């Protein structure tokens, strides 16, 4: 991002100098293009996953890795069980958006670090309930269902060509799905749910099902129709078919502005079926000249 910004600014500077203006004091135009920190520089191209059954991490060839971190929270000012140090609470944010609000701090640790080493992540944020611990547990238990019931808009599907295509031709399909987020209330807490499309299962209507795969496919310009793609399909029979794609969404949720926690299982949302008519093409060659003989075969 910074690189692109820097590049654009640099181009402008060249124009200005080209017009014969005198360079002034140091400005953004003279800056080297990349300024960032380890947070950005350290992003690799690979997704690491704790490989089950081993003691090491491995890179994923496809797909989206799970969250590599675990999270926990601690109540601020908690003396024991249900007693809070009131003087300490006075210096904390006021958690009055619901009943029995308590400030908490969130901590994070890389998964599989054993013993866990928790480092401060964010906070203080608020948790509300008679027994706030229970509220978070209840949300964790119910978030899967809530996520799957969210009004997530499934992908829209397009075929190229469409709706009519030819037997044996590489018919290109692509899906368009967007990240979506929802604000809901669960057990008195404000919960922000985000659904990110990560994988697709293609069902072409003729019994062929492909996926889940990370491929959403993409639009081809008309001169390239008929080329095989990651998501194209060749129908082996003529007829009318209904192609669908099921989009697999990964969910995260955040309670009262706390960290984004993963929803354990993906949500699956099927798109509306796309009608596809598969036709046979027959080529016949005629040698009549239709101008000379307008009644000839094929004229």
């Amino acid at each position, binding site marked *: 991002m*910074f690189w692109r910004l820097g590049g654009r600014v640099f181009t402008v500077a060249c124009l200005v100098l080209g017009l014969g203006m005198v360079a002034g*004091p*140091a400005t*953004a135009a*003279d*800056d*080297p293009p*990349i*300024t*960032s*920190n*380890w*947070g950005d*520089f*350290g*992003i*690799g*191209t*690979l*997704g*690491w996953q704790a490989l089950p059954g*081993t*003691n*090491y*991490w*491995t*890179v994923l060839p496809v797909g989206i*890795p799970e*969250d*590599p*971190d675990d999270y926990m929270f601690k109540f601020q000012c908690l003396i024991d069980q249900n007693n809070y140090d009131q003087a300490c609470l006075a210096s904390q944010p006021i958690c009055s958006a619901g009943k029995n609000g308590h400030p908490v701090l969130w901590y*994070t*640790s*890389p998964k*599989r*670090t*054993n013993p866990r*080493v928790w*480092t*401060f*992540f*964010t906070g203080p944020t608020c948790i509300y309930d008679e027994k706030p611990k229970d509220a978070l547990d209840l949300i964790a238990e119910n978030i899967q269902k809530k996520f799957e019931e969210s009004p997530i808009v499934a992908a829209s599907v397009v075929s190229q060509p469409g709706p009519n295509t030819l037997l044996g031709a590489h018919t290109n399909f692509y899906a368009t799905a967007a990240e979506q987020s929802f604000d809901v209330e669960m057990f008195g807490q404000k919960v922000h749910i985000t659904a990110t499309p990560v994988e697709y299962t293609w069902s072409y209507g003729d019994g062929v099902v492909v996926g889940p795969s990370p491929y959403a496919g993409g639009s081809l310009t008309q001169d390239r129709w008929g080329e095989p793609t990651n998501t194209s399909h060749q129908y082996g029979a003529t007829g009318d078919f209904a192609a669908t794609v099921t989009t697999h969404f990964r969910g995260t949720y955040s309670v009262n502005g706390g960290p984004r926690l993963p929803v354990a299982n993906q949500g699956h949302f099927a798109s509306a079926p796309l009608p596809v008519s598969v036709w046979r093409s027959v080529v016949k060659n005629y040698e009549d000249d239709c101008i000379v003989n307008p009644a000839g075969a094929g004229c």
Partner: protein
Amino acid sequence: MPVYKPASASGPAENVPVPVKPALADEFSKAGLEAFATYWYATLSYGFETGDMSPMEAVTDPSCTTCSKVKAGITPWHQEGRWTIGGQMTVNSVQSNFVETPDGTFQAIASVSQGQLDYVRADKSVAQSLAKTPPISDIIVAKFIEGKWLALTVEHLAGK
């Protein structure tokens, strides 16, 4: 004895001490790899502070792409009178299971944070100010070659 002076709004850091690799960081053991990982971040920190990546490069394989990205960003900035303020790396935790992977490497997992980092121009104007990062989970993939650890990859666990 030159005195270390951290960078400030009025000038770059002076006499930044070059990180010293502890003997433990050359040991072929769990504790050795963990000490090596900690040392690696000290060289990264030194790089951000001075623009000099040579201590990091001395213990890192050239194939480490995130490492080249840091160098491409930081080294040119530290030229022509520009400097940076802050950006020190803190290692919150580092742990290795000390298990050899199928390709003969060893891994350590670190949680690190970087302090506020300001990019300052020669005329003392601030080009960019980046806030302290939250804890970042990194993987350090290293190989033990000729009595020393060599970092092959250091990057965030959550990739692109």
